[in-house]
């Protein structure tokens, strides 16, 4: 029998009642289940219950060859699938010592940053819709559509890209893609003014997000929060800068940090990060080297026995692949460290004492992807 009475029972009295936020609730992203203990409108205790979309990706990896895990990687976090794809390929390339052509590295960075923009656009707009603004959601999706069209042009699909391959990428990019990306960046820069007018300077949005759901620096570090949620709490940590991988050290970009730690700060970090992503893409397009996009790699790779941990920055935080190989064509173990899991559980600390309406805003600002929590 499932025992979900994990919240301390001493808090329960006649006034306190229990509310199941989810698994099918319009304000939860996907099948997230939050067990809230409420005293009137005030949250007394919060407990996320995970496992509704557990698909066993890590176990699946253990009975298929290394290449066959590639489509799984873009389904762990379906909103930034390309970044996960890139990370898995880079981890195995490091383990096997496969050289990647420079052009392929640049293309990986361009596509990953485009993917980050699309993920942040969806994250922000879904969050804004959670707290009641429907119009920006449609505008954001209009812009996201352009990113998806660009990515479809080069990868062939729109959401679950299986684009990176060991030793490079699948398709080369063409001039039309480069021009289209530049046009899109110009367009999005113009649209930012609208977003700031519609959202950032909107009085209702400010009142619902300022000083709400504050994650202090200590709490963030204690719970292992990463990504925009950590940088919104004043910690300057980004895997792209702190433990650089791929060709990121060649680009000049900043890591946006806000000190406040509230919902507004996390929103601002995401907005600023999109601008930085656009800077990176522009620099990558300017310095795009010529050459092949895929090095010569055996049809089925045989990594040497050994293990490797590879960390990279997805749109939600630091992701890590811990890969153990026993020298065969089948992985011995693949462990995926996903940021949403740590980011979600910080809610148990910051929700108590807040109103339930603020709980929705906080949940939206953390920007969790449920299949990524459960894997």
């Amino acid at each position, binding site marked *: 029998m499932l025992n979900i009475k994990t919240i301390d029972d001493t808090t329960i009295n006649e006034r306190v009642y229990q509310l199941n936020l989810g698994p099918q609730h319009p304000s939860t992203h996907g099948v997230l289940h939050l067990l809230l203990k409420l005293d009137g409108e005030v949250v007394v205790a919060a407990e996320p219950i995970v496992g509704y979309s557990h698909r066993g990706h890590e176990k699946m990896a253990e009975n298929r060859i290394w290449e*066959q895990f590639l489509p799984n990687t873009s389904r762990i976090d379906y909103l930034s699938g390309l970044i996960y794809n890139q990370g898995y390929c880079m981890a195995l390339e490091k383990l096997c010592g496969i050289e990647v052509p420079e052009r392929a590295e640049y293309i990986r960075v361009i596509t990953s940053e485009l993917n980050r923009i699309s993920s942040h656009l969806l994250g922000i707009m879904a969050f804004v819709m959670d707290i009641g603004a429907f119009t920006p959601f449609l505008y954001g999706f209009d812009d996201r559509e352009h990113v998806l069209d660009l990515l479809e042009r080069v990868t*062939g699909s729109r959401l679950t890209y299986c684009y990176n391959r060991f030793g490079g990428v699948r398709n080369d990019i063409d001039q039309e893609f480069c021009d289209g990306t530049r046009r899109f960046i110009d367009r999005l820069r113009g649209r930012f003014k609208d977003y700031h*007018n519609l959202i950032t300077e*909107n009085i209702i949005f400010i009142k619902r997000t300022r000083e709400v759901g504050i994650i202090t620096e200590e709490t963030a570090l204690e719970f292992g929060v990463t990504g925009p949620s950590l940088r919104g709490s004043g910690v300057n940590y980004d895997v792209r800068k702190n433990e650089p991988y791929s060709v990121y050290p060649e680009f000049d970009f900043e890591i946006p940090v806000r000190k406040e730690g509230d919902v507004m700060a996390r929103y601002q970090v995401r907005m600023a990060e999109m601008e930085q992503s656009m800077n990176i893409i522009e620099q990558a397009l300017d310095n795009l080297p010529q050459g092949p996009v895929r090095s010569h790699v055996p049809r089925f790779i045989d990594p040497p026995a050994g293990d490797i941990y590879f960390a990279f920055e997805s749109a939600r935080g630091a992701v890590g692949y811990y890969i153990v190989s026993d020298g065969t064509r089948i992985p011995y173990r693949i462990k995926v460290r996903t940021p949403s899991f740590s980011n979600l559980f910080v809610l148990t600390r910051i929700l108590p004492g807040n109103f339930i309406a603020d709980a929705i805003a906080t949940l939206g600002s953390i920007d969790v992807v449920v299949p990524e929590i459960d894997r």
Partner: protein
Amino acid sequence: MGPLSEFKKYILEILTGSKSLVIGMGITFKRLFMPIVTVQYPRRKLTMTPNFRGHIEAIYFDDTKSHHCVACGLCVRTCPSHVIKVQGEKEKAGERKYGQKYYIDFTKCSLCGLCVDVCPEKTLTFSHEYELAYLSRWDGVIDIMRRLEAVTK
């Protein structure tokens, strides 16, 4: 804080609130005069990009007047979802095998493209089909050789 400043604050709040409202409505109003971004689907269709990944299909080659499949079975082994079935036969003993039947259960395909990458004869490619509604789950099992025949005829 006296009642006067309270009142002032109240009025200010109303003013800033209305300003936000006007700005928001302004953006919506501006949108009225912008071109429509949606495509009226059944009446207007988009052309797929050359890299679009539909289900796989065999490429027609002029030298054999058919495909180049040798029924090696690499695509069958690489497929993560085990949805491909290939059958080949030899016309005479000692000759090369020749792909005779090729089925893909597209309902379970995850469109990773590993089969296209692994093909040693480079005879597989992605089709540009995207209208994929079926009445039965068996309609999702695509006979690639029959598709190729339909193209060549």
